[in-house]
């Protein structure tokens, strides 16, 4: 039997919590630089171990069997899931981890309320208010993250799913939740548990309704926002439990998540409220000229593509989510290697929101051992586009759509794009002419200097690489 040695809120426990949250801050700080990031993650993980061990030593902790059970199940699932997940599925994984975090917060809040009821005493307002906040935000985060996961995993359609009267329903739900919270506060001492459960359910429905209408293209912003929400709800739980480690760590995540969210939204030239409430592509394919009709385009095979590339001086590869789905990062690296052997300059143009999370493409290409210097950011590569002989687009779509620049009525108008149409020639490797995440047609495909190579990205890249080798 482990001897409980620390008093909750006592000096020793607080000192250890301070060590833990200092390590979180150092860990995040180091996480912002490429050379120290891995070490930073370790520091934060050790901080977490300190916080957990400290908590286990508190003398209010009991029910060791249940604790062992929960830790065992959680560790097993966490280890298995994170060692099996593909790099391409990372966004879903983060959404799911974020969801369970929110779920944990909501359950802790429920437990606190039941504890209060069983004592039959009034819960002080400075505990009750954070508990209610944690319950609502945790539940929204849990269900919202699950919907985001389901969309990214293609379990439900990625296009915006609008419910009639959406905004009105959301407002009614929110008002209902506030009213129910007030009811619990007024009946403090003998609150109705049914009403509390109703709050959890209503917040869950709200989480569903807020995320369902958001199109796939905006998912990174949503996950980031939900990450910040879960952080804040964890901080609220810290207020309720008088736990300084929870307050600092939760707040740290809340503010960092907010920054990331705003950066991502800025990269798409949209505001966060616009993402949440405008329902991307709500007006179906606004500028789409003749939806059903096939517009004239040039289609080529792997051999032609190989010739175009092999005799170019400079090539820019524009990767998108299609590359991730097809697991084509290694095959593309082979194409680049073949080209470099022939003295062709190869760079990769990374759009800030390429893939489904910022930096997603960088991770995938790093996995394929693409040298860091070849990964170029959008602002850096765009001025070089007119001097580029061939731009190869692999599974990217919306981030290259010239409509963002040329058509003020387009749903993506104003979004910064990689200006591939400035390059001498464009090769688009894509399965079909179908629209991308944003659900709008891409005029780039029909431009005279664009050639379409209809194929699976991985297969096409492998074919091109071997054709170049044969030249």
């Amino acid at each position, binding site marked *: 039997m482990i001897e409980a040695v620390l008093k909750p809120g006592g000096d020793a426990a607080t000192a250890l919590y301070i060590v833990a949250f200092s390590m979180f*801050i150092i860990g*995040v700080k180091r*996480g*912002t630089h*490429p050379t120290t990031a*891995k070490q930073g*993650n*370790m520091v934060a*993980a050790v901080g*977490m171990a300190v916080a957990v061990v400290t908590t286990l030593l*508190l003398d209010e*902790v009991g*029910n060791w069997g*249940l*604790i062992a059970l*929960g*830790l065992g*199940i*959680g*560790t097993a*699932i*966490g*280890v298995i899931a*994170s*060692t099996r997940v593909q*790099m391409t599925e*990372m966004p879903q994984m983060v959404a799911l*981890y974020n969801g*369970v*975090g929110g*779920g*944990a917060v909501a*359950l*802790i809040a*429920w*437990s*606190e309320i039941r504890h209060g009821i069983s004592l039959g005493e009034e819960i002080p307002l400075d505990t009750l208010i954070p508990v209610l906040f944690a319950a609502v935000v945790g539940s929204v985060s849990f269900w919202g993250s699950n919907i985001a996961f389901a969309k990214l995993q293609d379990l439900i359609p990625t296009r915006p799913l609008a419910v009639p009267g959406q905004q009105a329903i959301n407002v009614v739900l929110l008002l209902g939740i506030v009213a129910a919270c007030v009811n619990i506060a007024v009946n403090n001492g003998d609150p109705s548990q049914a009403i509390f459960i109703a709050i959890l359910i209503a917040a869950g429905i709200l989480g569903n309704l807020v995320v369902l209408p958001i199109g796939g293209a905006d998912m990174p912003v949503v996950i*980031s926002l939900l990450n910040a929400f879960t*952080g804040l709800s*964890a901080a609220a739980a810290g*207020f309720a*439990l008088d*736990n*300084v480690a929870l307050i600092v*760590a939760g*707040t*740290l*995540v809340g*503010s*960092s*998540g907010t920054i*990331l969210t705003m950066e991502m939204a800025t990269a798409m030239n949209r505001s966060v409220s616009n993402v949440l409430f405008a329902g991307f592509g709500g007006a179906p394919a606004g500028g789409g000229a003749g939806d059903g009709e096939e517009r004239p385009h040039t289609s080529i095979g792997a051999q032609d593509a190989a010739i175009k590339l092999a005799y170019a001086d400079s090539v820019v590869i524009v990767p998108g989510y299609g590359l991730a789905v097809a697991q084509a990062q290694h095959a593309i690296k082979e194409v680049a290697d073949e080209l470099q052997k022939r003295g062709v300059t190869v760079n990769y143009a990374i759009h*800030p929101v390429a893939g489904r*999370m*910022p*930096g*997603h493409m*960088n*991770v995938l290409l790093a996995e394929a051992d693409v040298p*860091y210097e070849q990964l170029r950011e959008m602002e850096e590569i765009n001025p070089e586009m007119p001097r580029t002989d061939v731009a190869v687009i692999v599974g990217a779509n919306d981030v290259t759509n010239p409509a963002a620049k040329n058509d003020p009525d387009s749903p993506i108008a104003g979004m910064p794009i990689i200006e591939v149409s400035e390059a001498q020639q464009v090769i688009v490797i894509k399965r079909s002419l179908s629209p991308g995440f944003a659900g709008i047609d891409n005029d780039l495909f029909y431009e005279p200097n664009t050639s379409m190579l209809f194929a699976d990205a991985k297969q096409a890249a492998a074919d091109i690489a071997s054709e170049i080798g044969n030249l």
Partner: protein
Amino acid sequence: MTLFTEITIFVLAAFVGFEVISKVPTTLHTPLMSQTNAIHGIVMLGGLIVVGYANDPLEYVIGTIAIAFGTINVVGGFMVTDRMLGMFSRKPKPKADADGKGGS
């Protein structure tokens, strides 16, 4: 701790978060998001505490699930971040000839 002590901590921590994070290269956005995601798994401490005063079957279930959820968040989050960052750390020596193609 008094409420105002806690609010002070909250406000300062919020500013620390903004300051520490505001300059991140886009490359690291995904790993960083994943790392901060793991850090909010600290809610598992809340699970460990509330299960201590659970005293009926429903509360046992709630508390155990809360601990399991929080643990998934922590363990999975840090491990996945480590995997992602492992891919970057190989990079400083891209020309290493004896790159043993660590097939995992």
